[in-house]
């Protein structure tokens, strides 16, 4: 049995990731409001534009004080800059499937499945230059419980009084 430092991350990382999920709820709600008045394309385009401006402001506020870390000398490969392309394509796919017989709950549930399969593959093989971490039985049990709970909420909990 191998134990490495990456196996014992600080609890703050877990709390942070959980809070990030909470942030997503509000983001989806706000972007949905904008799409209701305009269109899904307008909503995503505006969110990316205002986000870019917000990022520049934050970088100007935060970044001046930061010294470059020595371990960051390794340059990022060009493809690492294209995460935004993948995100923009997601918007197009989901706004198509939401308006198909799948509806919102089907889109969310199947998206969940896609995300889980990708994350297991990504960790198992260390895809796209990230650290390899073999998911063990406990990881899979935890993932199974979270996905089952999320599917229950998506398919039977929301808007089904």
């Amino acid at each position, binding site marked *: 049995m191998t134990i490495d430092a990456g196996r014992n991350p600080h*609890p703050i990382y877990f709390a942070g990731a959980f809070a990030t999920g909470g942030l997503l709820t509000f983001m989806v709600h706000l972007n949905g409001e*904008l799409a209701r008045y305009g269109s899904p394309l307008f909503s995503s385009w505006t969110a990316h534009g205002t986000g870019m401006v917000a990022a520049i402001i934050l970088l100007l506020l935060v970044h001046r004080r930061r010294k470059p870390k020595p371990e960051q000398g390794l340059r990022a490969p060009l493809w690492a800059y*294209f995460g935004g392309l993948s995100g923009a394509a997601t918007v197009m796919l989901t706004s198509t499937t939401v308006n198909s017989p799948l509806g919102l709950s089907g889109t969310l549930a199947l998206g969940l499945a896609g995300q889980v399969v990708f994350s297991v593959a990504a960790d198992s093989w260390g895809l796209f230059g990230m650290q390899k971490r073999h998911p063990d039985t406990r990881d899979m049990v935890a993932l199974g419980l979270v996905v089952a709970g999320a599917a229950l909420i998506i398919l039977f909990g929301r808007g089904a009084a």
Partner: protein
Amino acid sequence: MTLFVLLACLGGVLVGLSRQLNGRLSVSTTPLIASFWNHAIGFAALTCLGLFVGGLLPAGAAEAPWYAYLGGPLGVVFVAAGSWAIARIGAVNSALLIIGGQMVTGVAFDYISAVPASFWANACGILLIVGGMMVSRGRRKVDRPQ
């Protein structure tokens, strides 16, 4: 129908791919810089698409409440936090916790805004999610090297 099922799954794969790429960029730079490029590249791509298919500025958009425009700035924090997390706890744990956080706050949000919902399905769902997160955390205590 099969096509829509595949597209919906692909949507989830792309969410994971985006987090993986942004995470890789943040390892060489910072999470905030990764978030900036995510939004800049996405904005450029959507501008091209909008100019091509039209409808970039729909008529009703001006009537949207001001706070609806805060989704973008929130997204910057979301992408930065995701890039920060994935580099530290991996793709599986990041997905697990972000999905859990989204579901738990989503249910709370629905109850606050009085959206009709099934109490038992939501309650059981949250119990499963919290149980899953405890299983994921519990292992780390057991494995802690002495």
